[in-house]
Structures are given as structure tokens and as C-alpha cells.
């Protein structure tokens, strides 16, 4: 199976080949379309990530050491980022998720899209995914 970091490097290469800033954003919006809808009953306060300016819901499951999560957000750009995270993390061993030090947000222009409060928010999302993976690996 392709590792998290191998998948990430492939994504970074593909993304950076899109030269234009608007087209990169449009690509993230396209990715947001691929995110499966989160059932309304899972959009609970308990599943909301604290400290995000956009609302983000995470529904995390770890069965037999395998990590999976479903997610949604009220902004499309964040949904695009959540889709990338699902592609990277889902089906991976929880221990690998816990150890994964992701760099795609900084090795692409994605982080530049967010002002500082949203940058922190995305950081909270990734931190929460890794924290829960570490707790149940």
C-alpha cells in the first residue's frame, strides 16, 4: 500500500503543476465535490472541531488499528482540504496517521489562501485527527 507521505508527495506534484492561483483554487473546489456528504445526524456539536473559523465536523472511526474518518464543512475550500486529508489518511494504520508529519499545506500555495485564523483552524483539524489516531492506535 502507498504510504501517507508517498501519496502526499504525489498530490503536491500534481497540485503545483497547476500554475495559476485561481485554477488551483478551482481545483480544490472540484475536490470538495468528491467529498461524500456527512449525514445530518453526524453534524453534532460533539463532532465540531474547536477553534475553526469555518465550521468543520469530523466523525472518526478506528477499527482494528485502521483509521477512517468522514467530514464536512460549511466552506467549499475547507471541504477540498478535508477531501485531501481523507485521501491521505483513510484506510491507513492509525499509528501511521499519528506519526504523519504532513507538509502539503506549505509545499503548495494552499496555506496562502487562508488568513492566519483559518491557518490555525486547519492546524486544529490535522492535530485532532492525529491525536485521536495516537489515542487508539
Amino acid at each position: 500500500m502507498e504510504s501517507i507521505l508517498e501519496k502526499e508527495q504525489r498530490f503536491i506534484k500534481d497540485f503545483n503543476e497547476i500554475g495559476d492561483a485561481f485554477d488551483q483554487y478551482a481545483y480544490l473546489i472540484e475536490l470538495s465535490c468528491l467529498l461524500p456528504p456527512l449525514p445530518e445526524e453526524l453534524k453534532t456539536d460533539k463532532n465540531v472541531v474547536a477553534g475553526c473559523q469555518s465550521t468543520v465536523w469530523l466523525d472518526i472511526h478506528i477499527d482494528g488499528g485502521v483509521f477512517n474518518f468522514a467530514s464536512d464543512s460549511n466552506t467549499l475550500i475547507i471541504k477540498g482540504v478535508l477531501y485531501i486529508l481523507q485521501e491521505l489518511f483513510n484506510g491507513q494504520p492509525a499509528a501511521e496517521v499519528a506519526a504523519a508529519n504532513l507538509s502539503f499545506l506549505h509545499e503548495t500555495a494552499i496555506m496562502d489562501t487562508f488568513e492566519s485564523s483559518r491557518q490555525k483552524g486547519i492546524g486544529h483539524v490535522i492535530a485532532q485527527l492525529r491525536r485521536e489516531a495516537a489515542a487508539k492506535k
Partner: protein
Amino acid sequence: MSTDFSAVREDFPILRQKVNGKSLVYLDNAATMQMPLRVMEAMETQQLSRHANVHRGIHYLSESSTRELENARDALAGFINARSSTEIIFTSGASQSLNMLAQSFVSGLGLGDEILVTVMEHHSNFVPWQQLCLRTGAVFRAVPVTGNGELDMNAFRAMLTPRTRLVSVTYVSNLLGTVNPVREIVRSAHDNGSLVCLDCAQAMRHARLDVQELDCDFAAFSGHKIGGPTGTGVLYGRLELLEKLPPACFGGGMVERVTLEGTTFAAPPLKFETGTPNITGNIGLAAAARYLDAFGIEYIAERENALLRRAVELLSALPEVEIVGHPQNRSGVLSFNVRCLHCFDVASMLDRLGIAVRSGHHCAQPLLDAMGLDGTVRVSPAFYNTFEEIDALAEGLERIIRVTKGARNGKHS
């Protein structure tokens, strides 16, 4: 006086730059207007040749700085037609002006007294009064808006009571651009025996602020919304009221005599200006006022209104765009949302095209709540914008609507 805006962009070199490889289209002037070269030059001259502390120095630089600062005060008094410069208090902006005024009311308010604001206020003209009421036991009331985003004037008149001590209302809404009938508000409030404060932060390029003609008791505005530096602003107060009001802050520069037993205060406006003022900034603010005056506020307003009308016309033609608020008299700003897109997505994508707008709650959450929204995209042209830039905004929105079609329709693989 001139109506020729053809060369105006030369005064704003910042507008020449590229953003994300595209020509910058700056449409966030309700947040901060760009600063003309003349303002920077005035501040540079102050820093290079006069920089020193003011009011108590007896040396050349101090005298020279004091003279320039007081010239700035005179210029601003003229700019808003105050009766005298003693009615101009320098502050760090409209927010501080309003907070300071609210603080000065603390000791004069009693249980059951009422402060009347509107749902349409910027948080800066809402929270200080709300908190003042919580601390003093006074009653905080807010006039509602109609579905079009205008003040409900019948409700306003009904909410004036014998206990209404002060009405504090925005001249122009920073969220919807609604121009409020401030003359009528002042008249009704005065007939009721209430004082009136006008938050003019968004109104300064809409019309000449004439405090005598408007007959308001207090007025607040910010420097950076008229081409001055950030961290500057004015609280205007009618002199006889400023003489009676206690100061909100204490320290150097605002006293007459300090002894172990007590302190007597300087006369207005110095009574309200504690510590070393933002000398260079205030000189820059006066230079900005002079710059706008050279064009004539009425011509600036006419051009900005024409740009805004074009934006309304072009955006109204896009079926996916929902314009927020439909006031009869709109100035300065236009708020909208794109159906099924978060305002943040729209503003971020416009930024990728080099178009600067603002998204979010615009410090007007009570009004957004009243309209059932959690945010908008807001565009706010200034006189240096061009009609081509408004066209670029509309084209940018069309492009965004096109590329997000699948996402907005909830397409899933």
C-alpha cells in the same frame, strides 16, 4: 474645486501593483481607504523636520510640532464645520471615540435611564453602550430594521421615551450601505430632550459632514476611512457638553493642577486627550481631509455612487448573486452572497483574481442576525476605482459561478 478624476490614481502608487499575477482591484475601501501621497508627505515632513513632544515644550521643535498639531485640529474643525477647534478631540479612531463617550456617561446615568441605538450599528457603536448599560443599570434598546434593510422609523419614534438620555446611531450602515435619515433622527431625539451621537465612520465620503447643519451633539469618525493613517480619528462634541462631561481617561496632558487632595482638569478638548497624542498621525489625518476637500466631497460622493450603481446593476443581472438589503438610499458598500457558496469561498477566489473585497460578519452581527445571515461578501469602491474594475468584479464573479457550478449543486462522485 475639481471634478477631474482621470489622474487620481497617480496619487495612490499602491494601486499599481500585481496580486497573484493580476492587476490589483482594490474594492475594500469601507474597511480602509488607501492613503494618497500627499498624506504620506505631510507625515514625512513632520517626522523629518519637527518631531518632538507637544504642548509643554519651549524649544523650537516642540513649538513647531504643537503649531502643526493645532493647525490639524483647525483643519478638521473646518472639515466638519464645527463651531470651534475646541470641539475636536483627537482619538485613535471611531471605536475609541465612541468608547470614550460611553465612558464619560458612566457617572451621569441612573437606574432606568435609557440608551437607544439601532440593530444596524457596527459593534463599535453597539457594544460600548450595551456594556455601559450593564454597568449602570440603564436600559439598552435597539431600533429594528425593515426587510429592505432600512431603519424602522415608526419603531424609532415609539422607542423614544422620557428616559431616553442618548440616541447613538450610524449615519451609513457598514454592512448594507443604508443611508439613515439622520436629520429626522436628530430632530425627533431633540424634541424628546435626548442627546444624539452620530457614528460617521462610513459616511465621511458619502456627504460633507456638517455638524452644525445636522445639529448632532456628538459625532465620531476614523482617519483611515478617508485616506488618513490608521490609529487616528475624531470625537466631535458640542462645546457646552464637553465642558460638562467628565473625562474618560486620566494622566498627563489633560490636567490643570494636581495635588494630593485632588485634580482639576484642562478645558476641552485637552481634557479628553490623555498622554502624548498621535501627532504625526493627526497631521496626516488633516492632510487627508484637505486632499478630499480639494476634490470636493460632493464630487467624490457622486463618483462613488456611480461606481456603486454600476456594481448593483451588474451583480443584479447574475441570477446566482443575492444582494443583501435593498435600501432606497445606498452609499459606499454593497453586500451580497453567491447562492450555495460561503462568503469566504467567494472572497478567497476573488483574491486569486487580484480583486480585494471583504467577507464575514463585518462587525455587524446584530444586523446579520436580523436578516438571518451569518456573513456576506462586501464590495466598497472609492473615487479612485474605475468602471472597468467594477466590470472586472462582475466578470470574476461569473467565472466563480461557472467553476463552482458542480460544487454548488452538491455534485458527488
